[in-house]
């Protein structure tokens, strides 16, 4: 009773559609309900990466998508396989990452009966997908797969889930993969409104202290070159959001780095002083704005975004412009006159000197210093994936990103455990680049099983693990807001990470003194193996600057 | 409530701040999913509700599998999540996830508390709903600003839940009909499920079985509800049930389903399920009755009350010698068996059973090893078998065992896991090491997602598409990195010494057993097949 029959099944049609989309990699984990897809997948040149937990399949697909600019794909089975995806999907959703997820489902006639491994995954993921489908008719499958890729990768990208009951996957399918997608309810706007474009050009010309605020949307639309041209033509300084890191090279004198609750001091001050703020592909997230009513108080705000719903959602916008950043900047370029903004740039220089980025007190090995060295040694050109915690902020503040799509981190949802699987996806997308994971002991443990995947696939990942034996970012909050009462943040059961790495055939290294930093980093860079460096740091480190709750961006707490 | 499992984060910090001064024990896990499973394991082992805490956004979404798992197995679980402040909700704020929307399909009830004055009543309600009627998970989402506001915390004297009726008395007429049917039956069969464990009906089950001479079969959730060593016990039914139990299902003329839901893994092809039987179905959840199979005598009530009511109506003793002997013959003709030689998982379990005298609390993951554990480690006490039955969640075993170890100190807690499942929550070795939880982990290591491989062998032309796990670490060395002792077992003769060492150890211990890689689980009813058409072992069986 071979269920994998030889005719063209729904499963076969899905795989054909994947080939049609040019998919080269699938991340996943098999199980009963998705076996028909696996059965067909194994007959194609598409490479499958077997992860250790489904959550990490989405994270890996997301890391792959963010570094390559292509759509990530993953497979999982019904029930627990599907529910394990939820965090990964939510993470991709918050950071607008294109992934298409295929889940197996129990046979159609059992849907709704609480069958074994049945979960209403389309219901569950409504709030965290751009769109999702439960396929009930096999003849719709080719069209749906095509639509799923189209929706995931166009407009504001995002995750799309396709839930396929096992009987649908096994049923014969005649419908071809359509050439075109027709969706009457979905028509993203790419071109900017000409009138608004002219208004934007005029405002830029009139502004005395203009500032560009670049977000993730810039890299999504591959607008880095246009951005650089605009900046150079108009001599406007640039700040970025966390997702915007890499959209403008930090070694450029006009780059001020990241703004926000842990933004660079001069970037935050510039934002408070500018008279015209041009947000490009940003969401004005609460982590960026601080107290909304005190945000950019002197500025007129222009907001360029492909998602109209973002405009006016959080901050008041004077000049909205809906469209694709690349299209808009390209059209904007000939409309603006070259400018110098001498006094403003002088003021920026002053701010830089007045408010340098400093570390504050800490232990023997300073994580900030280690990351600066890493930045130097890799010339800001490695791909850096991070987890969530203090180490994430240090990576953002001290590495010095110079290329687009090299900072891969869970920014919107702040998901611990994202880093390692994302790095797996990143190495697979960019085998030509060195990929470093900067992580913390807490986050790393959330997905450390993926060391097995890295080993199985022979991926020469480099892991820089800051071990402070604690959930130090939480500790930092307790330090400032909870009377220094440190609750549930200490990790006494931590493993010996170096030995652990060795169990996975990795090279394990340790840094416990300052003078070990450079040689150990050099050693890791020099080998072509999976390598883990455990760097012992103090749990008492604080991420500075820090904008307290309810304060304005320039009311930062800085180290004494 | 004495223990909670969780991981802190920005939006639950106010809660943790208070937790620190309360006399509640907090177990810090390494992944929120494990916190949910541990709370679930705690609930299964203790009968009390389990509680887990997570922060907003990723913390909350990480609970989803654990909640869905508790939902499918009707486990009382209260999940408390932090949420962004009320004013920030709905704006895609940092670490905002619509967790009440997300968990709508997998919770019995859930709440987003928008007013601090509702908090006390909501918490009260949540525990009430989680633990009464058919138990299940309830989630309370509390925005950060709500936890920092002050309010008089007073449980309301009375809950007002007009839409929730959970206390139902068995209907006298139906009870009488059931009693009469039992009196008249020639081949009655008791089929027990999780409802027996939940309601503590194991004594009533035994009385009914012994008093009326009725053989007993169980679903996986029913394991522990009736002593498996009892002469009236006929085995587990379903896809990997015993032949005798499945044959009995096909032949019985009166099926008494108690706290079961006739899951597809149990019924096989529904149209051919228990074809000769009149069916009595006792369940607290009216929606379960008639959902899959038509019950002739439905009794909506708690399993224990329902059985007690029936017992009262039964005058004398019953006697079904012929039927009992028939089942015995099936058992003798089709015993569970496996090929000797090599390193067999079944053998490991038999030895484990001998060494622990059947008194361990057995926690399993999902896969072949789970089925072997069910088959080869008979249990006799309720709340000693912790397994993800409805959702089949790999990764459940280790954290559930942590919960069990916390709930039942002094008992031997063993996890039977597979190399695939173990890696899903491998990070919890840190929690085990941190709290020195005396959990014994036995990995049936075949280097495969074995159950998947078995399906591919049977139904997919032996095309083993991505079911082999390469790159696995040496698990004993991994354990050692956590200062947990371990033993690698490569040969049969090493099994007993390794198990002895594990059981003798005061704290946690890990045994990595390199079992025969392509061993299969038999018997097996192909999915959608009828119960008496089983595939039995190709080789020695």
């Amino acid at each position, binding site marked *: 009773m071979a269920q994998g029959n030889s005719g063209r099944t729904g499963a076969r049609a899905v795989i054909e559609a994947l080939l049609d989309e040019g998919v080269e990699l699938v991340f996943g984990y098999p199980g009963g309900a998705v076996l028909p897809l696996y059965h067909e997948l194994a007959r194609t040149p598409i490479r499958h990466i077997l992860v250790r937990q489904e959550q990490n399949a989405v994270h890996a697909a997301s890391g792959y998508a963010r570094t390559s600019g292509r759509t990530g794909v993953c497979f999982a089975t019904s029930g627990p396989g599907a529910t394990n995806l939820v965090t990964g999907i939510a993470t991709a959703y918050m950071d607008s990452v294109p992934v298409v997820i295929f889940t197996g489902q129990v046979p159609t006639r059992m849907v709704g009966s609480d069958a074994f491994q049945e979960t209403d995954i389309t219901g569950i993921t*409504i709030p965290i997908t751009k769109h999702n489908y439960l396929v009930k008719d096999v003849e719709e499958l080719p069209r749906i797969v095509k639509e799923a890729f189209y929706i995931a990768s166009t407009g504001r990208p995002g995750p799309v889930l396709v839930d396929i009951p096992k009987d649908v996957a096994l049923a014969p399918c005649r419908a071809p993969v359509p050439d075109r997608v027709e969706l009457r309810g979905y028509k993203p706007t790419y071109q900017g409104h000409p009138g608004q474009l002219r208004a934007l050009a005029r405002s830029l010309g009139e502004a005395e202290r203009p500032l560009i605020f670049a977000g993730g949307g810039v890299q999504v639309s591959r607008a880095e070159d246009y951005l650089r041209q605009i900046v150079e033509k108009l001599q406007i300084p640039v700040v970025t959001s966390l997702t915007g890191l890499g959209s403008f090279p930090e070694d450029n004198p006009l780059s001020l780095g990241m703004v926000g609750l842990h933004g660079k001091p001069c970037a935050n001050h510039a934002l408070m002083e500018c008279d015209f703020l041009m947000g490009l592909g940003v969401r004005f997230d609460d982590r960026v704005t601080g107290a909304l009513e005190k945000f950019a108080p002197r500025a007129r705000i222009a907001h360029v975004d492909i998602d109209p719903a973002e405009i006016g959602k959080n901050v008041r916008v*004077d000049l909205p412009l809906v469209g694709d950043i690349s299209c808009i900047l390209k059209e904007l370029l000939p409309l603006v006159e070259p400018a110098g903004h001498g006094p403003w740039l002088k003021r920026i220089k002053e701010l830089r000197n007045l408010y340098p980025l400093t570390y504050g007190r800490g232990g023997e090995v300073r994580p900030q210093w280690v990351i600066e060295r890493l930045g130097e040694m890799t010339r800001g050109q490695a791909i850096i994936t991070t987890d969530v915690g203090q180490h994430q902020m240090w990576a953002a503040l001290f590495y010095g990103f110079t290329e687009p799509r090299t900072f891969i981190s869970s920014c919107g949802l702040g998901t611990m455990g994202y880093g390692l699987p994302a790095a797996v996806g990143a190495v697979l997308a960019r085998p030509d680049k060195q990929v470093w994971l900067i992580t913390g002991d807490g986050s790393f443990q959330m997905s450390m099983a993926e060391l097995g995947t890295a080993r199985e696939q022979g991926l020469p990942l480099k892991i820089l693990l800051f071990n402070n034996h604690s959930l130090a970012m939480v500790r930092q909050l307790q330090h400032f807001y909870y009377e220094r009462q440190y609750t549930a943040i200490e990790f006494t059961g931590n493993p010996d990470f170096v030995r652990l790495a060795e169990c996975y055939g990795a090279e394990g290294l340790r840094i416990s003194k300052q003078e070990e930093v450079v040689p150990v980093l050099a050693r890791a860079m020099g080998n072509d193996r999976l390598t883990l460096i455990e760097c012992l740091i103090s749990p008492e480190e604080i991420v500075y600057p820090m904008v307290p709750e309810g304060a304005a961006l320039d009311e930062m707490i800085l180290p004494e | 409530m004495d223990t909670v499992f969780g991981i802190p984060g920005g939006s639950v910090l106010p809660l943790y701040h208070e937790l620190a001064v309360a006399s509640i024990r907090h177990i810090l896990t390494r992944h929120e999913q494990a916190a949910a499973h541990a709370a679930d394991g705690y609930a299964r082992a203790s009968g009390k509700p389990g509680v887990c805490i997570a922060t907003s956004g990723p913390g909350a979404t990480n609970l989803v599998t654990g909640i869905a798992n508790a939902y499918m197995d009707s486990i009382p679980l209260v999940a408390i999540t932090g949420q962004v402040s009320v004013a920030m909700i709905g704006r895609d704020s940092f670490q905002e996830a619509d967790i009440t929307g997300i968990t709508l399909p997998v919770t019995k009830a859930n709440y987003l508390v928008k007013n601090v004055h509702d908090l006390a009543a909501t918490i009260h309600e949540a525990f009430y709903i989680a633990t009464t009627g058919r138990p299940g998970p309830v989630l309370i989402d509390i925005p950060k600003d709500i936890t920092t506001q002050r309010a008089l915390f007073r449980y309301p004297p009375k809950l007002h839940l007009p839409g929730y009726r959970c206390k139902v008395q068995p209907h006298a007429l139906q009870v009488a009909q059931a009693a009469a049917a039992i009196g008249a039956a020639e081949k009655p069969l008791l089929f027990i499920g999780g409802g027996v464990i939940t309601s503590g009906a194991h004594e009533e089950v035994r009385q009914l079985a012994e008093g009326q001479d009725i053989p007993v079969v169980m679903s996986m959730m029913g394991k522990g509800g009736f002593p498996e060593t009892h002469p009236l016990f006929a085995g587990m039914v379903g896809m990997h049930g015993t032949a005798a139990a499945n044959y009995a299902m096909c032949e019985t003329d009166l099926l008494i389903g108690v706290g079961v839901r006739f899951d597809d893994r149990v019924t096989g092809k529904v149209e051919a399920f228990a074809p000769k039987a009149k069916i009595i179905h006792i369940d607290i959840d009216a929606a379960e009755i008639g959902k899959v199979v038509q019950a002739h005598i439905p009794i909506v009530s708690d399993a224990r009350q329902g059985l007690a009511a029936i017992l009262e109506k039964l005058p004398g003793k019953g006697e079904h010698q012929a039927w009992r002997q028939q089942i015995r013959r099936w058992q003798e003709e089709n015993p569970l068996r496996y090929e000797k030689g090599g390193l067999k998982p079944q053998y490991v379990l038999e030895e484990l059973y001998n060494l622990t005298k059947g008194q361990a609390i057995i926690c399993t993951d999902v896969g072949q090893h789970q089925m072997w554990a069910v088959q080869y480690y008979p249990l006799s006490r309720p709340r000693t078998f912790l397994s993800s039955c409805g959702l089949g969640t790999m990764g459940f075993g280790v954290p559930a065992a942590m919960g069990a170890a916390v709930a039942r100190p002094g008992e031997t807690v063993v996890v039977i896991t597979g190399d695939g499942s173990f890696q899903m929550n491998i990070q919890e070795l840190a929690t085990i090491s941190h709290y020195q939880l005396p959990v014994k982990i036995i990995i049936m290591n075949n280097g495969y997602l074995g159950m998947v491989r078995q399906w591919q062998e049977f139904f997919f032309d032996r095309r083993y598409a991505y079911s082999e796990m390469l790159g696995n670490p040496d698990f004993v060395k991994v354990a050692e990195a956590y200062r947990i002792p371990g033993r690698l077992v490569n040969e049969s003769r090493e099994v007993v010494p390794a198990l002895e060492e594990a059981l003798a150890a005061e704290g946690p211990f890990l045994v990595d057993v390199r079992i025969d890689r392509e061993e299969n689980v038999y018997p097996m009813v192909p999915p959608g097949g009828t119960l008496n058409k089983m595939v039995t072992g190709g080789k020695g069986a």
Partner: protein
Amino acid sequence: MKRTLSVLVENRPGVLSRVAGLFSRRGYNIDSLAVGRTENPAISRMTIVVDGDEQIIEQVGKQLNKLIDVIKISDITNDPYVGRELILIKVNADPSVRGEIMQIVDIFRARIVDIARNSLIIEATGDADKIDAIENSLRPFGIREVVRTGKIAMLRGAKTRGMEASGNGTGE
């Protein structure tokens, strides 16, 4: 401020829960929602009455527009439209007060659709004001049960006004 949105959606399973989920997730206040299929069986129309300030209504429109299954949204509040709601009221009516009730029914051009010994079911259609008024007028007799459909609406004449997704409207 109450706004009436007329929303065209794909007639597919799950669309209602996507829309309802969006409102609850984003904390928008829904006054009423009525849905039914249109002249085209593949398309349904939802009439949604929402309560919120201008910024919220704008977000509601934009967020709804992001749902793939939502085809078109029109805010018809300020346009001439016909808005109707249907109400069923079961009211206490012993013979002594029946006459009085019939009068009210007449005034509102409502109908009696069921008579029992001590109660009547009254059916009325109209705009929200009328529906509220009839409900209020019957209240003194003792209302046992009320069922309302929520408002449905249609633009007068041939035109429709779209609430377009461009969003450029904010500053113009």
